[in-house]
């Protein structure tokens, strides 16, 4: 026993030490991180963010330098606070508050004292900076906007949040990330790749040299400039036309799918979301729940498409062979589509419409009839609807288009399972879904989907996925934007429909003769969509939305456009003239119809928008 007490103790201690070492070195991971945190410092070299140009090479977004006043509290010496505060435009109380905040963050590490000084403030401060030990100026790069328009398309950048830092290891707290629009979709192209230098620190947090001789260091990669497909002049013009109105305008180049204008009204100036004022302004925009300026009505809003949708039903009917362009269907100022079910129409009783006339006069009776034939061609309404749905969805409706903007909506194109959910006990037939014939009822589409639909008609049966990117320097754009997407309708069926759309604008009795532009053959289709809102928990009908889709010229079309004006009443009241002015602006660069232009720019629907908010009963469609 005596002989072995010490042996035993020695072995015990050895075992305890090994146990403790294995705990420290093998099982507890926290030390590794602690070690990196206190011994290695990563210094980043940020490349300049790429510029953004419009389709004509006009610079839209560049960078501007901004200057942060930084402070390292431990290094601060006694200073002339009064003078310093004057230079920075703050009072002494503010100075103390900010200093305390910095001190709480860390006495040894620099933190931002005042963020993003203006260039003028910086100039006067810089000369005297040497007098203030512990304070220094750090240059940062901010976005600088050369346009007051297209805030919804361009997006903005701001500091990453905790979630993004966790999700994407590239980002460190305090770095910038694209938040909306182009800045978000092309974040990786625009930002480039930051370079990193890893430095070894000592216990005083001083840099003592590169970490592992710089084998982990990388060089920054420049951000790339991009050209977007917007015509900024058209965009700015459209925003002017949308003054005091709510709604969206989307213009597409049919031959490429490039978005020429993407307007949402009301909107905001992109430079509001830059620099020191960003969060204040953002909150203001975000809290405006009445105008909702951050809601992109071109991309996110979904409306019943109304009459423009009739053109698709005509095409489907031709493709399915249930009607010929010359067949006439008689309208009795409406018709009974089922026993005791009347659908009204504005045609005088006894009007015989062929397809062309039905389109330009927008006859409900005609399209109800052909829609029924399409669906009832099959034995079961289920098959009929599925087949109809297949045709409609081939135009890019009812789903995300797959465009390169970070927001959007699917819209709705009902299929059989949709009606199965709606009528669980069955019994639905073609006539149950008759509203589909005239673009009302269950169908919902966003302005960009309608613009794409119009472009598809203009192209006679195919489209390119609408996209905002035109060119990336030193890189080609995504292949899916240059792939032709064919619809289920063969090209030769488009003639009669296009002719009808042309007559909408040209012919006496057409619904939108106001959209006629001298010297340009415009094809269009008006729409008037009923819509409802919940006011004090009562479903209340509001004034109809004014809708117009158009493309021009008729041969070799250059622009397809969809215009939605919320509560603008009938299609040719607001939407058609605005669409027509946009087309004229784009195709001829100058608008000659001054009177119409002025009326549209000055026209306001504010009264209409105030009605539901007034809390009093109101009349619609006045």
């Amino acid at each position: 026993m005596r002989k072995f007490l010490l042996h035993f103790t020695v072995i015990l201690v050895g075992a305890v030490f090994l146990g403790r070492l294995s705990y420290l070195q093998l099982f507890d991971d926290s030390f590794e991180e602690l070690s990196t945190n206190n011994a290695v410092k990563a210094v980043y070299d940020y490349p300049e963010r790429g510029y953004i140009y419009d389709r004509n090479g006009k610079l839209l977004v560049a960078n501007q330098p901004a200057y942060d006043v930084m402070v390292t509290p431990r290094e601060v010496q006694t200073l002339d606070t009064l003078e310093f505060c004057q230079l920075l435009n703050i009072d002494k109380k503010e100075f103390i508050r900010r200093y305390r905040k910095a001190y709480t963050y860390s006495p040894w590490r620099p933190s931002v004292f005042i963020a993003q000084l203006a260039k003028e403030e910086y100039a006067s401060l810089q000369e005297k900076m040497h007098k203030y030990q512990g304070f220094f100026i750090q240059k940062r790069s901010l976005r600088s906007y050369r346009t007051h328009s297209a805030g919804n398309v361009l997006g903005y950048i701001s500091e990453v949040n905790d979630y993004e830092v966790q999700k994407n290891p590239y980002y460190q707290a305090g770095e910038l990330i694209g938040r909306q629009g182009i800045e978000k979709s092309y974040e990786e192209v625009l930002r480039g790749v930051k370079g990193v230098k890893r430095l070894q620190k000592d216990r005083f947090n001083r840099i003592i040299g590169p970490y592992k001789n710089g084998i982990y260091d990388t060089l920054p990669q420049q951000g790339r400039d991009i050209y977007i497909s917007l015509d900024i002049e058209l965009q700015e013009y459209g925003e002017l036309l949308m003054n005091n109105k709510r709604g969206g305008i989307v213009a597409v180049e049919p031959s490429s799918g490039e978005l020429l204008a993407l307007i949402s009204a009301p909107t905001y100036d992109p430079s509001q979301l830059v620099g020191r004022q960003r969060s204040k302004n953002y909150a203001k925009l975000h809290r405006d729940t009445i105008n909702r300026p951050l809601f992109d009505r071109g991309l996110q809003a979904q409306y019943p498409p109304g009459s423009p949708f009739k053109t698709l039903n005509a095409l489907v009917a031709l493709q399915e062979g249930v009607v010929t362009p010359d067949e006439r269907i008689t309208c009795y100022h409406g018709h009974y589509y089922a026993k005791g079910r009347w659908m009204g129409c504005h045609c005088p009783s006894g009007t015989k419409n062929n397809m062309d006339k039905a389109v330009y006069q927008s006859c409900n009776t005609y399209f109800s009839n052909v829609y029924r034939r399409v669906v009832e061609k099959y034995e079961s309404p289920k098959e009929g609807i599925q087949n109809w749905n297949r045709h409609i969805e081939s135009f890019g409706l009812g789903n995300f288009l797959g465009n390169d903007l970070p927001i959007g909506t699917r819209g709705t194109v009902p299929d059989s399972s949709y009606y199965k959910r709606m009528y669980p006990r069955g019994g639905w037939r073609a006539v149950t879904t008759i509203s589909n014939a005239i673009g009302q009822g269950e169908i919902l589409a966003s302005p960009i989907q309608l613009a794409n639909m119009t472009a598809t008609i203009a192209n006679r049966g195919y489209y390119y996925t609408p996209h905002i990117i035109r060119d990336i320097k030193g890189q080609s754009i995504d292949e899916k934007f240059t792939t032709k997407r064919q619809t289920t309708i063969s090209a030769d069926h488009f003639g009669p429909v296009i002719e009808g759309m042309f007559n909408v604008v040209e012919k006496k009795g057409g619904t939108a003769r106001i959209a006629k532009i001298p010297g340009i053959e415009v094809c269009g289709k008006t729409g008037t969509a009923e819509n409802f809102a919940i006011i004090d928990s009562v479903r209340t009908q509001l004034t109809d939305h004014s809708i117009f889709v158009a493309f021009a010229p008729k041969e070799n079309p250059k622009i397809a456009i969809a215009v939605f004006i919320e509560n603008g009443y009938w299609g040719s009241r607001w939407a058609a003239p605005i669409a027509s002015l946009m087309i004229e602006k784009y195709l001829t660069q100058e608008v000659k119809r001054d009177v119409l232009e002025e009326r549209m720019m000055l026209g306001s629907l504010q009264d209409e928008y105030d009605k539901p908010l007034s809390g009093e009963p109101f009349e619609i469609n006045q």
Partner: protein
Amino acid sequence: MSRTTGNFLWKLDWLTILFYALLVCMGWLNIYSASLNENANSLLDLTQPYGKQLFFIGCGLVLIMLLLSIEAKFYERFASIIYLASLAALLGLFIFGKTINGATSWYGIGSMTLQPSEFAKAATALALAKYLSDMQFNIKNLKHQLSAFLIIALPAILIVPQPDPGSALVYGSFFFVLHREGLSGIYLILAFISISLFIVTLLFGPIYVSIGIAFLVLLFFFWKRKTKKKKRLSFLPFLGAITVMVAFSFSVNFVFNNVFEQRHRDRFNIVLGKSVDTKGIGYNTNQSQIAIGSGGFTGKGWLEGTQTKGGFVPEQHTDYIFSTVGEEFGFLGAGGVVIVFTLLILRLLTLAERQKSQFSRVFGYSVASILFFHFVINIGMVIGILPTIGIPLPFISYGGSSLWGFTILLFIFLKLDANRLNEWR
């Protein structure tokens, strides 16, 4: 004197020498890493710790040859004189001593310094071995016990006021030796109970501890009465035991709160987990644990330790050298050092047990006990399971006096061991 040198070398215990060499090399590599800086040039730069340590190791080799060439009998004969000389050296510090970091523990010789307390351990071991191996010595005799205690205590008493309580504490290791030589186990049991009471009192306060003591002793009393089947078992001794332990617990509390200085209290509180402090007093321990923990299984590689390079662990090349081992060589290196130490001490114990002369056995046991004490306290401190007590890790920590002191201990014993069969010729 007919032995040839080759014959003699063959008798040396090369396994011990191998362990020694491993530890010294490991030590130098880590000192090099911990003290390397940008104005370093040659390995023999005598202004840098690693350069000096290389010089110390070189001198150590000369020292080893000297120690091995001296006749074994010399150590036994001159033990008392060596002991007295070392006492004199310790005394002399009060007059000629040089103060470094607040402790007057060194003699300055040119640019070099010598720390006599590192050598006094060997001298005390020799003196104790000599006294215990005296024919007339009887360990059961209280007077002899006291004399033995005195031999151990004298240098410790001289070292405490330097102040260097850590080094003085090392002399406690001789109790292992006394126990091996037949000192009643009661001392060790008492020591064990005192230390346990000390710790639980600090953790739970004297009142709970008193209740616990009373409960346990009563339990023991009833168990004893049942098993012994004695009709009458006096309760008096048990009551006495309770009283003494309760008094001890309260006095610990008193001493801790009123006699100890705040820094001592802090050190205990941190190890006992009663206070968390990573910036002030707990900085060392925390940083050394970060360094060791970040080493992982294989370590960051020699000269690649970020904590070591950043100099986050104070005193890293001296008392905290083990944190460099842990960071740069990982679990493999640190565990390896622990295993080599354990094997070395076990090997020394085995060698001690095989000695024919009591002098050699006592001395060998002393060497093993002293190494063990340093090993426990130093590594225990660095990995955060013992309070901060600044004593070096043998063979590995930077420092000439410490390296030479341990080298002397080890090689005198190896010489004695090699000579063990000659005793009877």
